[in-house]
């Protein structure tokens, strides 16, 4: 409502101004917002959720914005070409939504100092390049608690993509969450070296189920593992988006990325002229990550326990990485009571103590 009345006021004012002074008409120009996606919107995961964010921007600003999105942009030279093209077409703010778009974004941003860029999940910033990401590990910890309580075989399967800190952090968080409620829990981790290959993801889930895992986590983009869990009658945790349609019985809960509030706030800032290059890393507390559709078959006390952990993380009362905590090889990582700072989290390239198997380099 607020936006709508704001729109009407502006439109009226600008219409009046247009009669008086022509240059004011320039101000009436719509804000052009561009999005670059690494996958198809139809992946029902990562890029799909970013697109939901675009739709939130459209809904919030209506006629005042014009949005463009480019799907399926490979990380590499194509990313630079697409981003530059968007900048040349007069987009005022451009969101590039994959880690591999980092260098292309920085490069193009230098050539278009007046255009604002937002890069998702990277660490390089510039005067006109902001970065943003979600603290997925918070959701993985909460879901780890659920998984730890719900597993009967004490074996949790984890389908991992690539050994980057983002993924390793997620494995550690899920393990610590599960371990906190179930000291006997073991994690079986399978690396598939892909973000998106439904056939291979299904194969990996099958292998984990065959080896006795009865709850499956994934850090890949398709719902194949969820669908397999449903067929096998075991459980799984939804990743990036709500995968309930693929596992109505199987999905214990999903950690859902919600980019909408951030995108709306940033576009608003660009409109108001208050946009600055910032580094945002928001989690459950910031509303960027939600734990969705916790299954009704989960016993009430487990649900309550998970909800408490979720609320404590959201309120800042609890940090998933709190000491005492050792690395896998037994070397100390965090002292008793110490909380991992963002720097430590960002560079996490080791398993925590208790996880078996070796981390690929």
């Amino acid at each position, binding site marked *: 409502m607020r936006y709508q009345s704001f729109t009407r006021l502006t439109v009226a004012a600008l219409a009046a101004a247009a009669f008086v002074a022509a240059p004011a008409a320039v101000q009436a120009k719509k804000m052009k917002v561009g999005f670059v996606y690494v996958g198809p919107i*139809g992946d029902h995961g990562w890029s799909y959720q970013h697109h939901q964010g675009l739709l939130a921007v459209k809904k919030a600003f209506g006629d005042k914005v014009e949005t463009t999105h480019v799907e399926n942009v490979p990380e590499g030279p194509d990313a630079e070409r697409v981003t530059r093209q968007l900048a040349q077409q007069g987009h005022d703010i451009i969101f590039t939504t994959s880690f591999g778009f980092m260098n292309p974004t920085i490069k193009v941003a230098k050539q278009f100092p007046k255009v604002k860029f937002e890069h998702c999940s990277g660490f390089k910033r510039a005067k006109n390049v902001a970065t943003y990401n979600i603290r997925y590990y918070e959701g993985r910890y909460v879901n780890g608690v659920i998984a730890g309580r719900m597993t009967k075989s004490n074996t949790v399967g984890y389908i991992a993509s690539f050994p980057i800190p983002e993924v390793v952090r997620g494995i550690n968080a899920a393990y610590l969450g599960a371990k906190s409620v179930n000291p006997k829990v073991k994690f079986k981790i399978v690396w598939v*070296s*892909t973000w998106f290959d439904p*056939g291979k993801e299904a*194969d990996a889930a099958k*292998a984990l189920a*065959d080896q006795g895992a009865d709850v499956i986590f994934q850090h890949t983009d*398709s719902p194949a593992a969820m*669908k397999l869990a449903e067929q096998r009658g075991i459980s799984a945790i939804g990743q990036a988006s709500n995968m309930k349609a693929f596992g109505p019985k199987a999905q214990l809960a999903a950690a859902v990325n919600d980019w909408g509030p951030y995108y709306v706030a940033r576009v608003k800032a660009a409109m108001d002229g208050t946009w600055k290059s910032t580094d945002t890393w928001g989690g459950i507390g910031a509303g960027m990550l939600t734990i969705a559709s916790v299954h009704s078959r989960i016993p009430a006390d487990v649900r309550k326990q998970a909800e408490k952990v979720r609320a404590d993380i959201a309120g800042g009362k609890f940090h998933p990485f709190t000491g005492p905590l050792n690395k896998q090889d037994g070397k100390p990582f965090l002292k008793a009571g110490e909380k991992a700072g963002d720097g430590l989290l960002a560079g996490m390239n080791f398993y925590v103590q208790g996880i078996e198997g070796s981390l690929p380099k």
Partner: protein
Amino acid sequence: MELVVNILLGIVIAATPLVFAAIGELVVEKSGVLNLGVEGMMIVGAIAGFSVTIESGNYLAGVISAIAAGALMALLFGFLTQTLFANQVATGLALTMFGLGLAALWGQDYSGKAAGNFPRLDLPVLSDLPLVGKLLFGQDYLVYLSILLVVGVSWFFRKTRGGLIVRAIGENHDAAHAIGYPVVLYRYLALMFGGACAGLGGAYLSVVQTPFWAEGMTAGRGWIALALVVFAAWRPGRALLGAYLFGGITILQLHSQGFGVKVEAQYLSMLPYLATIAVLVIISSDRLKVKLNAPACLTQPFRAAT
């Protein structure tokens, strides 16, 4: 023991889409045409099979649609390369890109939907045998169809007149034409058979294996099928073997990770491809043999002298 059976079951499922796509392309190449659009035909088959299965609730209808969609894609390729004499390599690549785009468009309303379980063979007593029952007598119907297709194609090339004609056209289309065989017609038919098989392979992925639709879900399997044809030295039995080898290593490396084998995951992911390359090198070490096996007219356009 049960784990071994489960691993074998996993291998069968991982290999079957490759068996379909490879055996189809093998027939196409035997007729002297190289269709690099396997990936594109597979993905169109995947969405055709999935969308029709969802809309009609009938698996048979879904499978038939996938076959038809793959064959139609191949017909388009045939028209461009056989009638209009477009370059086969370029047209094949274009067919892949076209297929990926077309499937994405077609599939817009189907992402987020899921199909049920594909019907399986269920024989009294036999399917319930311990261990081997599930493996030999409890697979989904398409697995048996894929094996039958390989046997059928092998028989076709060895024992039938039609197979001999296709082989002749692939080896020397001018001679075949001189005897009076309709070269272009046979090539059209071979292409459509290849397209139908590729479509079926795609549908196996979207209707049986996963079973859902996601854009780009074939994830390069069409290219692997193409490599398998060379790997097999254009022999149906070897194509089957190659597909199972590839699927087998894929599944085994996933399992070995679950068991905590201390090998870097990247190496394990490379394994199926490395094994394929290794076998390719061994096979092609004897050049004469490769030359003998490869259809001599592969990729050559045929224009009837008038």
